[in-house]
């Protein structure tokens, strides 16, 4: 039972940990840039929200896990897929919101440095981050709780499951920590670009997952398999799992999944560049061009 526990806990923790690392890296970037400028300290993003979102996530995961049977029976036994698809779509939506709300002063002329960020925008950004992390933990936590709940009944394998869970959690959390240090160790503008890219891929992943779940529920039509890269990178391998958690790698995606992935990536990319373009035009105005 050791390896089962490792696989399940690792899968779930990895996704949540990577999401948290990514957002914390964003936060670090933001605060680092703003402390250098004249923005009042009150507008700095606080890290305390992560605690709230983790606690909320665990509470909701528990509620979800307890009511899984009822949810599962809804919509003619595909309630679980529908609920999960809703969670994934919401995550995707709020990831796009984060990309849109994230204020980025690239240069000295940026208006943000001159005027400071509107606090309502900071509030909305923080809220979006809380929701995204909470949803990630809700998604992944409920599965761990189901697994653990089933195991607790049979005490014979309890210890090996515990060790497995610890190893899984250890690998997942370490990877998250190292990703965070990796992202924050990059030069600031690269750090921002990499974070935005990962954010876009995560949003694509969420959209593709939502589509896959709705296909599984027969709410969306079946579409042909786009490609099979299983020989290149096995989805069940450690590297495959890591790529799945980080960028939503799937060895045999359907065309509809691919389309949803592209839409998710473009949505983040577009909101990031629109914001960037808006900022550029404003800074041009400030210069009187």
């Amino acid at each position, binding site marked *: *039972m*050791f*390896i089962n526990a*490792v696989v399940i806990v690792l899968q779930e923790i990895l996704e949540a940990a990577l999401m948290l690392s990514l957002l914390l890296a964003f936060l670090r970037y933001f605060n680092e840039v703003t402390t250098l400028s004249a923005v009042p300290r009150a507008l700095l993003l606080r890290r305390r929200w992560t605690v709230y979102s983790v606690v909320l996530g665990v509470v909701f995961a528990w509620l979800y896990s307890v009511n899984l049977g009822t949810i599962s029976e809804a919509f003619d036994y595909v309630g679980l897929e529908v609920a999960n698809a809703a969670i994934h779509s919401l995550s995707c939506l709020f990831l796009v919101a984060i990309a849109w709300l994230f204020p980025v002063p690239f240069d000295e002329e940026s208006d943000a440095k001159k005027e400071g960020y509107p606090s309502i925008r900071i509030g909305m950004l923080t809220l979006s981050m809380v929701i995204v992390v909470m949803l990630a933990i809700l998604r992944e936590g409920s599965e761990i709780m189901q697994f653990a709940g089933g195991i607790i009944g049979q005490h*014979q*394998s309890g210890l*090996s499951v515990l*060790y497995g869970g*610890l*190893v899984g959690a*250890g*690998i997942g*959390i*370490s*990877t998250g*920590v*190292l990703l965070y*240090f990796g992202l924050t160790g990059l030069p600031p503008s690269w750090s921002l670009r990499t974070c935005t890219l990962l954010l876009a891929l995560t949003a694509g992943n969420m959209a593709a997952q939502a589509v896959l779940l709705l296909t599984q529920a027969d709410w969306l039509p079946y579409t042909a398999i786009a490609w099979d890269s299983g020989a290149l990178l096995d989805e069940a391998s*450690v590297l495959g799992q890591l790529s799945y958690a980080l960028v939503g790698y799937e060895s045999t995606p359907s065309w509809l999944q691919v389309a949803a992935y592209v839409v998710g990536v473009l949505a983040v990319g577009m909101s990031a560049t629109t914001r960037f373009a808006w900022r550029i035009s404003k800074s041009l105005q400030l210069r009187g061009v």
Partner: protein
Amino acid sequence: MRSIRVFLVTSIVALLMLFNFVAALQGYQSSMREADTLFDNQMLDLARLVTNLDVSPDTSTALRLGSDLAYQIWQDGELLANSSNAPAERLHEFVPGFDYANFNGYRWRTLARYDTARSRWVFIAERTDLRFVLAENVVLQSILPLLLGIPLVGLLVWMFVTRGLAPLKRLSSELRDKPANDFSAIPTRESRVELEQVLSSINGFVSRLEAAMEREKRFSADAAHELRTPISALKIQLHNLAETVDARSPAYLELNDGIERMQHLIEQLLSLYRSSPEQFAAHSMPLDLSALVQDVMARLYPVFERKRQAISLEGGGGDELIVLGDRFALETLLSNLLTNASRYTPSEGQVVVALARSTDRISLTVEDSGKGIAEEDHLRIFERFTRLANEQEADAPGCGLGLTIVGHVARLHGAQVNVTQSRFASGARFEVTFPIGLQNSDQHKQRGESQ
């Protein structure tokens, strides 16, 4: 604030944990594969043994197998013999090799072996869950140290990193505890390669700072002293002049004013020097603020009387208003605040001095009914030689050092100066708040900073 130690410890522990656990996982998987082949080989041995059995009705009793093993012997599509826990139907296809099958509510590893000599099929089955648990118990024993070692390794990493950073910590505490007037070099006996540049640079800065401080001190003191003598001479000359020239002539009065202003400037420069940290440290003692205020007020009474201004004192009666500080410096602070108040308040205006004590601070406020100070000037007025635009036409002999000295003295005492609107229709309110209790350490810190 980011911490070097937290970064080092978390990143090292994360790396160690990642590699250790992935290694443990790899070890687990390869050991489990090994165990699987071992079990399969046992099944092959068992199959050979079963093939050579003489099949008789009591075979099942003669061959006692555990409940985790089952066998069947088939010949020409007939079941010749089987263990009691084997199913009635054949548990494997008539194809030699290993496979899996579900029966009796369990999953079994199955093996088919055909014996050409006896033209028999022998099927062996072993419960997968049991052999898995057996193998896992063994394998887990070997990877457990990797898992349980992590907290210990984390603790050791923490200790080593702390030890590694100790010279840096010692350096920073040495810098913190260094008295403000101590310009000696920081000892380099415990230096590390990484700290050598930092230390030598700091020591270089300190010695240059000492030289600069010395120069400044000597200059301001010398200049003030040297200037005093000619000023006194000038005053005497002016006095003598009054006997031959009309003392009310505009030229005489302007000369008189000019000399007064210069004398005032020199006095202020001298007190700025006297309120330097070294002077302060030498003269610090507990003082009754209330008595001190009354003293200064009495001394400055003629100033207020001249302009027919009303000056009053509020509070300060029963309360304990003891402040640790330098008497001369505090007197300078007060007299500067009071002269300022008088100067910028028109004739027949009002000035109120108030003393109050709360649980953790003593506050001294001076309010006037003058013109007041525009909000954008609140910070600027404490800078040296700042004179506000509307001051230029004022008749006062100000030089722009008064509030600089106030701010300076307040900082030395760990006190804060705030400027706000006064209680009157117009006018400024200066509030100096002295902390109680913390005062000592604050002074210490402030002294360090002011250097």
